[in-house]
């Protein structure tokens, strides 16, 4: 992990095998190092990711205001899509579009809350372990590794079952907030490992050593010197957390362990399953919610790619360098061909 965040310098000397030394990997890395980019370049991937996520977020935020009441069951049951009901109706006479708009909102809520909880835990465990090292590192990483090894979904299922049948929680017991918390508490370990590796490498930097010598308190060093350098990585981990939670919520709800009070994309799928949507060919009921989940995941992953390419320049520069090499090779072959012809 250490080399991933390393500021690229022109130190590498893997000049190309072909006659194009001016434009090889090392030079490209050096150029990128100088520009010191913080924000990702707007590439095709990033743009499509942002558009997908923007559109879905808007749909989740504004959709429920426009499409009507998702609980209104006064429509004709199991209508296929028509101008009156763009995505048809369910077996109980709900408008599918209205359900999905509200469900998107619910799923995004669970995703973001769980993602933030997981990120916070990963920060505490990963950065503290990486920064302090020694005994703190041993203990925190032991807990992290145990969480990493214990299988996630079964654990979530068990915790959710116990919690949901606990008396005294009232409405909270089966709320989407609680589902989000359970998903967050069980999903932070992977991020913690990544953050710890980077924090450990940042800790050995001269500017951190300078702060230590200057007598800064450890917490201030972590917040002022280390965290700003972790921002791209934190963003990537948050995105992973959100994807994980949205998918996890869908699975949990599909099994009937999701929030009952609110509508999410997972509960819509669960209703579709109990309503025999697949058997009766009511594709408009179960295809759209799953498609939206897949789109959320894809959009977020595309954004993550852009972040990945900042954190790990090799991923971006190596294909570009290979492309240039090939072009040079082809040009060379072409000129040689002309020489032969002449």
């Amino acid at each position, binding site marked *: 992990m250490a080399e991933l965040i390393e500021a690229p310098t022109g130190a590498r000397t893997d000049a190309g*095998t072909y006659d194009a030394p001016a434009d090889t990997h090392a030079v490209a890395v050096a150029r990128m190092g100088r520009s010191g980019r913080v924000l990702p370049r707007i590439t095709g991937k990033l743009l499509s990711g942002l558009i997908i996520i923007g559109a879905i977020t808007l749909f989740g935020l504004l959709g429920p205001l426009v499409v009507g009441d998702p609980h209104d069951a006064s429509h004709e049951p199991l209508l296929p899509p028509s101008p009156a009901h763009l995505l048809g109706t369910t077996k109980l006479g709900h408008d599918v579009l209205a359900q999905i708009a509200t469900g998107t909102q619910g799923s995004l809520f669970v995703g973001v809350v769980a993602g933030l909880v997981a990120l916070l835990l990963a920060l505490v465990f990963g950065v503290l372990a990486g920064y302090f090292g020694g005994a703190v590192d041993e203990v925190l990483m032991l807990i992290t*590794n145990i969480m990493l090894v214990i*299988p996630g*979904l079964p654990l979530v299922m*068990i915790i959710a079952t*116990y919690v949901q049948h606990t008396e005294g929680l009232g409405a909270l017991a089966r709320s989407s907030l609680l589902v989000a918390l359970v998903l967050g508490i069980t999903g932070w370990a992977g991020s913690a490992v990544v953050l710890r590796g980077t924090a450990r490498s940042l800790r050995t930097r001269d500017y951190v050593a300078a702060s230590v010598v200057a007598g800064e308190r450890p917490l201030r060093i972590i917040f002022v010197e280390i965290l700003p350098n972790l921002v791209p990585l934190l963003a990537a981990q948050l995105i992973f957390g959100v994807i994980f939670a949205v998918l996890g919520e*869908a699975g949990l709800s599909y099994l009937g362990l999701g929030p009952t009070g609110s509508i999410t994309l997972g509960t819509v799928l669960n209703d579709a399953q109990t309503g025999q949507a697949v058997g009766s060919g009511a594709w408009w009921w*179960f295809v759209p919610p799953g498609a939206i989940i897949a789109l959320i995941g894809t959009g977020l992953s595309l954004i993550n790619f852009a972040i990945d390419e900042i954190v790990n320049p090799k991923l971006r520069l190596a294909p570009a360098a290979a492309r240039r090499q090939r072009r040079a090779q082809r040009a060379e072959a072409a000129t040689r061909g002309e020489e032969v012809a002449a």
Partner: protein
Amino acid sequence: MRFWTRRVVFYVITLWAAVSLNFLLPRMMPGDPAAIMIGKLRRASGGRPLSEATITSIHALLGTGKDTSLWDQYLVYWGRMLQGDLGVSSTRYPASVGDLIADALPWTVTLVGTATVISFVIGIVAGAWAGWRRGTWVDQLVPVTTFLQSIPYFWLALVLVAVFSVQLGLLPIFGGYGVFEYPAGPEWSLGFLGSVVVHALLPATTIVISSVGGWLLGMRNMMVQEMAEDYVLTAEAKGLRPSRIRRAYAARNAAIPSLAGFGIALGFVVAGSIVTEQVFSYPGIGKLMIQAVQGLDYALMQGVFLVITLTVLAANVLVDLLYGFIDPRVRRNG
């Protein structure tokens, strides 16, 4: 040697933590899972009184709620675990949890195991190729694999069922074998084996499609990184054939992290594709887990969770052993 000692200590602690978590969870809850469970068992047995042994066993597993100290309960619990006593199921009374798990295990292991191996092989081969052809149109495949990975796998299963079973009527909708052709249960015959294969096609396809993207992407990225290393450049400078550089140099090193991932994925085979098994009503571990959760069968739930965790741990131990041999750097830096 220090490396192995550390690993052994880690696994012992993890094992202890997993069992203790199983012990603590039902006792931390304000309700009384043991009372619920015994009530369920009474109903399941049709009002006949439960044997003293069953009740003691349930109390040992889920907590007595009486004035025995938590520590004493903990010791009794460990005693039960070491004897392999996982209690009696209430949803499938009077079957013991151990027997139920033993029945379900082969189904999950064969289905998910085969699917995992297929997915891994396809992913690694395709990933090595995509990494080799970096900077060409193949790079465009990367976003496609992300889409595959972002699909909720049970939803993919639903769509496959809707198309191949409901619309086209080609493949069976549920179960691990034809329950109508073989009402007596599994038997050793060619016809039965065929029935099992046909029933496994859709679930296996679902698992392969939804997991292949991860292998492909991981391998491709590692391949791209390895291709930028100096030793590859040296190999090129020596004038080795590209196919040799690809196979014997880059792909070999690039596959190391994927191999570790593969070992761990094999461990998660038993955790299975819980939700996929639910879609197909496949008679495996996942289905058992769902039954337990839906029927509030706490004993079954604990037992399944314990078995799942144990397999994952075992797989991790194996991976560690192998990894230490494959990649000596791990031993030194671990």
